[in-house]
């Protein structure tokens, strides 16, 4: 009798567990969209359109379509297509001056003029890019899972090809997951007008007697037509379930890039003791860079809301260290609607060879760049996303964000007229995104 009773209790517990497990499985399915009305059986699609606009500078539009196909037995094929278009003006690295300045376009053909007191911006940027990614994931043995993928990105003057792989293993009843991933990419750049030699001065057509003489000098200032870089990376991760409402991840990554890491469009102004530009020299960065990062992410369920907090510390052998903190908090509101405020703070130290300008009469350093993106900078993003689950389980969301970069002077003394000019101007941008999953 006792035995029977124990047996029936075990059976009841087992049945209850199975019911709960299958309920969880259903919950997971409905939330990952597998129960939505799908366009193609077994496939789930996510799409987004993004507009990014900086005040007086770059404007970009980007479209993404991603598809995830379920091939049964926990095997998935992920496909990703990205199209983006970029126009507008980008800071060249040259300093503002009390008078208007004229610059030769990167192609060598034609010039543009920057107004007195304004930050020199090259307005020749027009580019369209297409990107394709594919990956296949499947269980390998019990507790092991593997992913292999490929990456292709092409724009007018740039091609990137990459492969990647990842293996993960579950422990502690799937409460702990360890993963290791690796990627390798090969990029080639073929810029209009070729790649300038290190610290070669920007030439002006007006200083030459004939077009032929100018073209000959311009060609002589180019090191090559195209160049390449390779990037190899390792990524280690631990994911830990802390409790039924808290998930945590810690990643360590190391990436080594070798090859052409300079920007063929960026220059440094050489100024005299009164801050007046004498000439502009094309920049030169080292030909290798090793970046490392620690990334820590937390997901909390807090009485119906979901909080995503992450922090990243990145450091490299260019002495560029950065801290990034990011918070997203998703609250349910009326009906199937939700709102998700987002805040991000970023701060970086300058690369050791960053200089806002060069001084006349000083010997040239081995490396120098005035690109504010590797200078000292703080940046923040604030915004919110509003979304809903429509009939059929399709997600629709709109996201609006404001992004501001505040470049800082890393402690360089400004000579003469530069003291009264804005050399470290803010960059302000708005992002608007519409997303739809089906």
């Amino acid at each position, binding site marked *: 009798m006792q035995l029977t009773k124990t047996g029936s209790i075990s059976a009841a517990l087992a049945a209850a567990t199975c019911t709960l497990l299958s309920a969880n499985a259903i919950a997971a399915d409905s*939330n990952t969209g597998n129960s939505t009305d799908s366009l193609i059986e077994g496939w789930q699609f996510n799409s987004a359109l993004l507009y990014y606009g900086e005040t007086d500078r770059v404007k970009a539009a980007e479209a993404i379509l991603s598809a995830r196909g379920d091939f049964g037995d926990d095997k998935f094929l992920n496909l990703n297509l990205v199209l983006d278009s970029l126009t507008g003006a980008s800071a060249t690295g040259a300093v503002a001056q009390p008078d208007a300045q004229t610059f030769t376009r990167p192609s060598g053909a034609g010039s543009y003029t920057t107004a007195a007191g304004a930050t020199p911006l090259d307005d020749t940027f027009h580019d369209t*890019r297409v990107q394709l990614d594919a990956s296949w994931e499947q269980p390998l043995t019990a507790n092991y899972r593997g992913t292999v993928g490929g*990456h292709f990105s092409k724009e007018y003057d740039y091609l990137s090809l990459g492969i990647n792989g990842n293996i993960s293993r579950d422990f502690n*009843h799937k409460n702990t997951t360890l993963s290791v991933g690796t990627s390798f990419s090969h990029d080639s750049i073929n810029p209009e007008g070729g790649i300038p030699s290190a610290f070669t001065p920007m030439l002006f057509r007006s200083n030459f007697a004939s077009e032929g003489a100018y073209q000959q000098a311009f060609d002589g200032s180019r090191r090559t037509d195209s160049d390449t870089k390779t990037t190899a990376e390792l990524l280690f991760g631990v994911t830990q379930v802390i409790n039924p409402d808290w998930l945590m991840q810690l990643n360590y990554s190391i990436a080594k890039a070798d090859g052409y890491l300079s920007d063929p469009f960026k220059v440094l102004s050489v100024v005299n003791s009164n801050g007046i530009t004498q000439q502009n020299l094309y920049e030169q960065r080292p030909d290798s860079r090793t970046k490392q990062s620690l990334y820590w992410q937390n997901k909390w369920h807090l009485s119906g809301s*979901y909080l995503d907090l*992450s922090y990243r510390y990145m450091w490299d052998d260019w002495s560029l260290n950065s801290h990034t903190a990011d918070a997203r908090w998703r609250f349910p509101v009326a009906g199937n609607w939700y709102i998700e405020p987002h805040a991000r703070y*970023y701060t970086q130290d300058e690369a050791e060879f960053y200089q806002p300008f060069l001084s006349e009469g000083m010997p040239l350093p081995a490396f120098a760049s005035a690109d504010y993106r590797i200078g000292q900078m703080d940046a923040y993003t604030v915004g919110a996303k509003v979304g809903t689950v429509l009939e059929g389980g399709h997600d629709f969301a709109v996201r609006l964000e404001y992004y501001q970069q505040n470049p800082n002077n890393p402690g360089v003394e400004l000579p003469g007229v530069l003291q009264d000019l804005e050399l470290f101007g803010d960059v302000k941008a708005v992002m608007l995104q519409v*997303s739809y999953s089906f």
Partner: protein
Amino acid sequence: MNNKIRILITALALSQLAACASLDTVKPWQRGTLAKKEMQLNSAGLDNALDDHIYFSKEGSSGGRSFAGGGCGCN
């Protein structure tokens, strides 16, 4: 003094170990919330991809969440 620090460190280490041991308490039937889409680490995959692309091209850092290298000439 050194002993006190050692004891403190040992106590901290033991408390961490105890915390780790207690991590294994989330049972399959307690994972309803963890299974939700909102609780996935990359729940907003497209948002993250777009953000990573913007910040990759505007700042001196990249990666962390996923691979940092290669990609586009926007940097």
